[in-house]
């Protein structure tokens, strides 16, 4: 079954009708785990939903690494240089701008504009702006496609994060990684097609951000741990050697096979195949997270062994944040190399309502070097062209300082969905290009606004997928990643 041009009828027979799952027999047959001709199964009933398959048009990108800055970083202190805002620091905002606007915490009557305290400079051939918080990333300017006019329609974290990951601020929807897994399958047979790596504390959205929603659960993000066994329940129980695991699985396969020959249920074949896949994952997945084969130079480039700052700022607090984030970036490269379709790196501590200078400095220092290393590493390995890197939060932050009642001083910014920045690299995007422009204080776009759904449509296009055509019938409606009630557009300018 190919979801790209699947018919409704097929959906009902395979998705809702009971065979929905996942049958990997075809895969096993290829790898020879079954002697040829040994299985007899109902013709056409067994398909491998993770088999790689083509999209609607030629793809530029094969894999995606989405680095999600959950909590929403300040675009005005990282990417979108607004010198006018610096000049207007401390002044009231023109009423025309704030009319009818909602804030989470700002008291509108007394709020004043807050200039960035960062120094900005231009980089690369195009003269792309970065603040002094991102010196490493700035060296990749010519590979980066910056969007300064991103727009969301949500201004609370969890709904905003759902919109960014799943296309709408609603629960129970599949995330982008699930859609790509569903639409395109995986390039690797022994690993999940969609993996999630988290650093630091949990995000607002938690596991809802990598849910497969109404798609079959095989397409859900699999949470990998960067230390210890990478996948839940991956290791044999204590005291069980590999030889006995193998022997046990051999006996299990024989028992199941005998049953299959009596009742002919293709689900049994799938189950047999899945136990074999599980066994292979047991050896392959730990290799993936074993960094012992990486050179010292690579580890140094990513900053895996950088020392943590003495003072951990903000609420990140699980310790070893720097190591964890750098390791996740390196793991993402290794996974992309292994054919994983979608890697989600989630780091959630960007919600700087107060104490922003310290907090942003801490976070930016943490992510800057590993992200730059990732871009350069992929490029050097010839993988950047087919790997789409996307970085950003669920919305941006206000040009106004946050004067929440009870705050001693204004030292942070409030939620701002009206204009924020994200950047991409590789995967067929236009490098060295800055898209869109905001007004002088960064309040809203003056041209080329990009709604999150537009970005998602564009990302799918890079994978050769038409966002209007990759659909799934659910509750009587053919749903897709982008909101069916909104007319979303592919932004061609972002594509090389």
């Amino acid at each position: 079954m190919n979801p790209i041009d699947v018919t409704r009828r097929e959906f009902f027979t395979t998705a809702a009708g009971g065979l929905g799952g996942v049958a990997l027999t075809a895969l096993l047959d290829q790898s020879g785990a079954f002697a040829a001709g040994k299985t007899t199964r109902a013709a056409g009933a067994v398909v491998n939903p993770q088999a790689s398959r083509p999209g609607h048009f030629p793809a530029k990108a094969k894999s995606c690494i989405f680095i999600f800055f959950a909590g929403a970083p300040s675009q005005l202190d990282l990417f979108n240089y607004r010198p006018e805002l610096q000049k207007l620091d401390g002044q009231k905002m023109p009423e025309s701008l704030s009319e009818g606007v909602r804030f989470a915490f700002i008291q509108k009557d007394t709020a004043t504009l807050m200039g960035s305290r960062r120094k900005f400079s231009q980089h690369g051939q195009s003269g792309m702006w970065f603040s002094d918080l991102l010196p490493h990333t700035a060296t990749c300017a010519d590979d980066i496609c910056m969007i300064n006019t991103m727009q969301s329609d949500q201004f609370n974290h969890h709904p905003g994060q759902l919109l960014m990951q799943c296309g709408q601020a609603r629960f129970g929807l599949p995330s982008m990684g699930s859609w790509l897994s569903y639409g395109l399958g995986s390039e690797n047979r022994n690993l999940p097609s969609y993996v999630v790596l988290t650093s630091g504390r949990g995000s607002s959205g938690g596991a809802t951000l990598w849910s497969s929603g109404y798609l079959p659960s095989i397409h859900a993000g699999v949470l990998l741990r960067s230390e210890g066994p990478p996948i839940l329940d991956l290791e044999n129980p204590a005291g069980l050697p590999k030889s006995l695991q193998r022997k046990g699985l051999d006996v299990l396969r024989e028992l199941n096979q005998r049953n299959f020959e009596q009742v002919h249920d293709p689900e049994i074949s799938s189950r047999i195949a899945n136990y074999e896949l599980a066994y292979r994952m047991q050896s392959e997945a730990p290799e993936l997270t074993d960094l012992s084969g990486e050179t010292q130079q690579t580890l140094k480039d990513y900053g895996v062994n950088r020392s943590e700052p003495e003072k951990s700022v903000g609420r990140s607090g699980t310790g070893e944040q720097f190591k964890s984030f750098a390791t996740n970036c390196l793991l993402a490269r290794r996974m992309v190399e292994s054919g994983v379709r979608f890697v989600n790196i989630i780091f959630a501590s960007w919600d700087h309502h107060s104490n922003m200078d310290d907090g942003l400095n801490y976070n930016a220092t943490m992510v800057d070097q590993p992200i730059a290393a990732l871009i350069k590493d992929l490029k050097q390995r010839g993988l950047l062209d087919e790997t789409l890197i996307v970085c950003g939060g669920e919305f941006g932050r206000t040009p106004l300082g946050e004067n929440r009642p009870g705050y001693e001083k204004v030292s942070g910014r409030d939620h701002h969905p009206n204009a924020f920045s994200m950047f991409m690299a590789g995967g067929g995007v236009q490098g060295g290009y800055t898209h869109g422009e905001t007004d002088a204080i960064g309040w809203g776009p003056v041209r080329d606004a990009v709604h999150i759904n537009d970005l998602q449509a564009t990302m799918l296009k890079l994978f050769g997928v038409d966002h209007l055509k990759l659909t799934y019938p659910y509750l009587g409606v053919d749903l897709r990643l982008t909101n069916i009630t909104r007319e979303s557009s592919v932004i061609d300018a972002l594509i090389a």
Partner: protein
Amino acid sequence: MDRSAVDRVPVFGRCLRISGAFFLFALIAIGSVNPFAGIANAAETRTVDFVNDIRPILGKCVACHGGVKKNADLSMLTRERLLAPTEYGEPAVVVGDASASRLIERIVSDDPDERMPPEEPLEPEEIATLKAWIDQGLPWPTHWSYELPAAEKWTGDASGQKGQGYSVDFFVHRQLAELKIAPSEAADRRTLIRRLSLDLTGLLPTVVETEAFVNDQRPDAYTQLVDRLLASPHHGERWARHWLDEARYADSEGYEKDSPKNDAYRFRDWVIQSINKDMPFDEFTIAQIAGDLLPDRTDDHLIATKFHLQTQFNLEGGVDAEEDRTKRVIDRISTIGTVWLAATIGCCQCHDHPYDPISGNDFYAMYAFFDNVDFAAKLLDSQSKDAEAHRKERKEKMATLTENIKKQYSNKSLSNTVQAQLTNLRTFDNQKGFVRYLEERTEDRRTTYKFRRGNFLQLMVEDGAILPNTPAILPPVTARGEVPDRLDLAHWLVAPDNPLVASVTVNKIWMHLFGQPLAGAPVDYGSKGEAASNPELLDWLAYWFVHEGGWSRKALIRLIVDSDTYRQSSTIRTELAESDPNNKLLARQNRFRVEGEILRDIALQTAGQLSRKIGGPSVFPPLPAIIVQQTYAGSFKYKASEGDGRYRRGLYTFFRRTAIDPNLSTFDCPDSSMTKPQRSRSNNATQALALLQNEVFHEAAQGFARRLLELSLVGGLSDGERLRQGYLIAIGREPEEAEIALLEGLLLEARNFYKDHPDDAVKLTGPHQVDDIAPAENAAWVATTRVIMNMDEFVTRN
């Protein structure tokens, strides 16, 4: 294959209710290659069938001329709308005259700018069919699910007595006979008792129970067994979980904070008890929709309204409390639509339904039923000496909050104060043991207006206030007062003339007994939903449920499981694999993996570890640290239960929406974000990893080994006999010799290994080491029992 084959498919009465899907299916079932062959040529002369011929063609138009988009003011969703004036003034269709209809003119146009549909022109046969349809007077029958067959239809014996008049078998066998397919043989008794026990109680039969049933010579042995299982208190647990899926039950508020709700379990307990005492489904419905409005309301009625408090509550700072309230109302309406009506009315908050005849007005009229509900709270059966003080404190908090909410309408700067006080109140309730429920407000009642494109800030005041009402397509609601209220809505749902509720309900009960519903999509009886493969059977069951069964779910279950259809073997019929791959004809039973909760239950049961305690607060079995860490800022301070709490049934696991036990989510347990009447059923490698290695399942394997070893310590049993006992316990049947030989091989290899590795033996056996048994011997058995508990037959209900 020609149409005559279809005509042979047995129908009597409402032939229009056989949907296109069934029509196609019937053709495929008898080996047609091209199901459309023979239709097109006959189009001009024969009578056009709306469902099979016309609806698929209109399906190509409604994306632009439907409920969401109405380009040129043309909508093709209903006959009435198709005949309304378009932007050109005249309607697009002249009834009885295709040649004068602008619709046809545009479809046949040679001008690419004029021709419709713009991308792909219709086939000549399709155009001919459309013309014939218009010429024949534009017949547009009521959609199959919106019309109720007259009760008089079921003349004769409709009691459902076996072998007389109508019965499950009557309808199934009639359809099979027409297609010359024989039903399957009955499954053997071992299979039947395992199937029934899993379906009715979610537990395995014990070895003693199985042997007793196998040897029961009484003629009514089967019905005795059914009665015993239906009377088991575990029946309520089993079927409560089905309902909790629909109720989107969770022990936490949802969203970022996802704070615990310590009173949530009271709703679960109420559902378990209601099912155990077989509360009729109409009463069950009324209590949940409007228990608070009943004249003689009890605390149980209030707890029942917690159905609506399962909706998520956003306690994140900065949230607009009013917006979140409207979201909760929308969720409640959408959930009622899905659960009771199988209608996707949630779409209509922004626009008319894209495919179905439900409008935005219908949605907001339903919304109005719930626009004046608030959550209230009570201290139930509290012995606390501080109870009075808590009540007083709550009253004060509530008064301040209410005052501020009122002011917030005109003063938005109070939004954060309101949100903070609301959060504070929710926390207070939770800590002091209050039980929340739903209550209608009597003062300061809100007036309902439509939202422009679903935006709560843009009230469409110019369209006037919206009064509570039920969807126009369905029979009208009867109001006790001037305008209908929630209690009227509840009565309307279970009124005998409601065409949907009984049918939707029996379809789902059927689904839980066969692994798949009769009508394809139990959540969608709309135009995209698949009609039943055996429509008359579904109609009759719905009729029987209300008129013969008195809405008793136990009676309906008894009726269904008593049938030969239910008792059939589930062995796949290879000769039907091509023509009926999904067993729509019911020529056999189905076999399928049990749900995540039930896997846990039967694993613990097999291990002899399961706690049989019914009801009470949720428990905390061990949860991997990485799952706990995913909660917002790691806010979940998870402390695993000790003793009994570690071994309760899966439905009692504390369900935190942002940190779901992977042993549930990996096996398709819903995330409780929205109602989920039908679970998906996946089969993948992470499930294999969990069953092989997860702490819970491995401990069960340890317990199972212990149980087998303790069967006879002194003198001992042969390995083969012990393995046989293991089969009887876990699989419920006698093993074959070859199976024993395979497991003996494993046992032998494991013994050899552990003899040389005593430390590993101790580790594998864990805390379940049997006294007086050598660790190596014990470990060898653990290595073997874990394989039995991973067999397809163990995890499958067949």
